């Protein structure tokens, strides 16, 4: 089963490579292939069409490449599962890759939406993969529902575009984008961004992603780090024409992105679950990407998507390897000193940590630097917060690294006895990803090091309008200064974390601000109090009061009223002959009065004769 699962992904990776080399040639025009008409009405037509261009081919490579490695890794990682669940796992995983490819290949917003919801579905299925555990099921449901909130925004934006232009094809929409008024384009882009918030875990819809770590670790690597969560970035880059027309939205995107990056980084400082640290780190890195999008550095964002896919997948897979060795122990307080038991995992993990911390010449340095440079040029405050966040990133990553791999082992003897390096099906993907994490940055060497060396920018230039004119405005001295500051801060953070946590691991429960961070700013509790509970209370109120006594009460009340009236009127039929006769006489008298003196009662009679 694993063979089929991996084989088809390998096949699609091969196809993606073929496409890539074709697209890479100069003068390539985007190709749109229409399979059939999905919905064809007199008012509009939505074709089931795919579009291949530079952006989608790059994403194809990331999805199928990283996806294949993770599939291979999974064949070993999921070996313990029973046969039927093993098969189920791979069918979900392949369904995910299918949906993700649909998302990036679609030639219009509806097809993208199909993939968009499809990956949400797979995410739901895979988070709740071990469905016997109800906590996992809650996490799965939470992920799906939060994604749906975003999806609603996306859907409304699609309706708006459809209503205004009568088409949702990218080419037509972008060609006619100038017909939108500023208000419309701002509203549409904001709605699209709501969609991206849900899928890419931005404030305020980010809380599902850390919970999503309930799924198997390779799933976290593939879906909740490398590919699905970057769908929001893809969507905004795809719509860059629209975003360029809406500066208000761009500011919103940048601010929310940065706020998310900062918030998630503070939370990551105090997490003790190895996967939770990585999850918050993912949220934080996604925030960086949105910062890049908000300041117009589309290439930088895509670049960071790519490098992030490499090193974050590597981190998660490494974490998976650790968890595998530790028999499903995820708390870093019970780890330590794993360096000597898991040599390959250790080395690759270290490389990934260096990459994410932005140490040159690892890949993360180049992409992060590009975003920060663009931010600096846009607004210096953005840059300052960004650099502080980068420092925090380096700190928590090496806190994680030190507590896991350095120092003394703190687990039980039994665990220590079982520690072992993972099988080669798991380590080979680690090694490949490690190589990519190291060298992946060289596709986007900034202008200051070598002119015209930014291959990625050159590659993406046809799909991104005026992509990074921002990054060229800085003189070289400033740019070196910016790099120096961020790298310096990162190095200080690394040294501090290394020395501190390898000797004295942080075991005690955090206090004060630390506790506040460890409890994730109490955001879950806040949402519970302001959204979930009131909604449930309202539902209860509707169910028990309005429905039961209100609407149904009226309906039943009418029934009861008729019943009651019947019972009361029945009493007139007393059975006493005298009463009947009296009634009869009275009626006759009344009739005589009406007939003979009717003219004096004209108003009343007129009413009745109408």
């Amino acid at each position, binding site marked *: 089963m694993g063979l089929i699962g991996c084989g088809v992904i390998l096949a699609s990776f091969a196809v993606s490579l073929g496409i890539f080399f074709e697209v890479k040639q100069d003068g390539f025009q985007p190709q749109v292939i229409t399979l059939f008409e999905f919905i064809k009405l007199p008012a509009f037509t939505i074709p089931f069409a795919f579009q291949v261009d530079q952006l989608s081919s790059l994403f194809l490579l990331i999805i199928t490449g990283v996806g294949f490695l993770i599939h291979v890794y999974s064949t070993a990682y999921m070996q313990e599962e029973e046969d039927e669940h093993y098969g189920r796992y791979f069918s979900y995983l392949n369904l995910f890759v299918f949906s993700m490819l649909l998302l990036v290949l679609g030639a219009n917003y509806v097809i993208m939406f199909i993939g968009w919801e499809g990956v949400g579905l797979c995410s739901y299925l895979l988070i709740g993969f071990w469905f016997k555990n109800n906590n996992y099921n809650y996490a799965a449901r939470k992920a799906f529902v939060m994604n749906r909130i975003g999806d609603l925004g996306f859907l409304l934006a699609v309706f708006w575009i459809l209503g205004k232009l009568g088409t949702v094809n990218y080419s037509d929409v972008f060609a006619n984008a100038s017909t939108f008024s500023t208000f419309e384009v701002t509203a549409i882009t904001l709605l699209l961004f709501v969609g991206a918030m849900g899928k890419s875990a931005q404030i305020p819809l980010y809380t599902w992603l850390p919970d999503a770590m309930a799924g198997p670790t390779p799933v976290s690597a593939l879906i909740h780090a490398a590919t699905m969560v970057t769908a929001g970035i893809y969507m905004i880059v795809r719509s860059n024409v629209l975003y360029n027309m809406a500066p208000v939205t761009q500011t919103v995107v940048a601010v929310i992105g940065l706020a998310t990056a900062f918030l998630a980084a503070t939370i990551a400082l105090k997490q003790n679950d190895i996967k939770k640290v990585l999850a918050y780190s993912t949220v934080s890195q996604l925030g960086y990407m949105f910062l890049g999008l908000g300041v117009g550095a589309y290439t930088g964002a895509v670049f960071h998507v790519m490098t992030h896919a490499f090193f974050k997948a590597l981190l998660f897979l490494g974490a998976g390897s650790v968890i595998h060795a530790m028999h499903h122990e995820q708390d870093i307080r019970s780890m330590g000193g794993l360096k000597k038991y898991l040599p390959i995992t250790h080395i690759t993990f270290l490389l990934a940590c260096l990459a994410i911390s932005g140490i040159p010449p690892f890949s993360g340095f180049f992409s992060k630097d590009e975003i920060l440079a663009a931010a600096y040029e846009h607004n210096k405050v953005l840059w300052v917060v960004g650099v502080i966040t980068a420092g925090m990133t380096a700190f928590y990553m090496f806190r994680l690294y030190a507590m896991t791999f350095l120092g003394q082992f703190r687990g039980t003897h039994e665990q220590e006895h079982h520690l072992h390096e993972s099988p080669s099906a798991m380590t080979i993907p680690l090694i490949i990803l490690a190589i990519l994490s190291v060298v992946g940055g060289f596709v986007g060497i900034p202008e200051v090091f070598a002119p015209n060396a930014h291959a990625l920018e050159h590659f993406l230039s046809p799909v991104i309008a005026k992509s990074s004119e921002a990054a060229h405005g800085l003189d070289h001295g400033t740019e070196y200064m910016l790099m120096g500051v961020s790298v310096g801060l990162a190095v200080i953070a690394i040294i501090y974390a290394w020395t501190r946590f390898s000797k004295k691991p942080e075991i005690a429960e955090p206090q004060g601000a630390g506790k506040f961070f460890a409890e994730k700013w109490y955001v879950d509790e806040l949402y519970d109090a302001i959204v979930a509970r009131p909604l449930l209370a309202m539902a209860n109120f509707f169910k028990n009061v309005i429905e039961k006594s209100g609407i149904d009460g009226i309906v039943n009340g009418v029934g009861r009223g008729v019943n009651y009236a019947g019972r009361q009127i029945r009493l007139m*039929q*007393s*059975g*006493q*002959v*005298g009463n009947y*006769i*009296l009634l009869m*006489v009275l009626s006759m008298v009344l009739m005589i009065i009406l007939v003979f003196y009717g003219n004096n009662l004209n108003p009343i009679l007129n009413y009745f004769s109408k």
Partner: protein
Amino acid sequence: MPITYYITLSVVLFCIGVVGVLTRRNAIIIFMCVELMLNAVNLMLVAFSKMHNGNAIASAPNSTVGIDGQLFVFFIMVVAAAEVCVGLSIIVMMYRNTHSVDVNFLNRLKN
């Protein structure tokens, strides 16, 4: 005699009948009151018949003008007689069953 005398007498008789029916409980007395009301109507019919066609009768005493009103009276008398037959027999049956002719005992249909 002016017609009003007849009308007054007839109305008085009729009202006596109505009040009797409404207030008395003895079936036979109610029955007699009903007869009284019928006869009040009879009296009225005859009086009106005579009044409307008074001139015609005076000029030709042998003509049959206005006879229809008086014919009604005969019909009513016949019907009343038939009614008495049925009614009295009901009352007799009722007496046999309940040993009373009080109409207030006859409320069994109520339930």
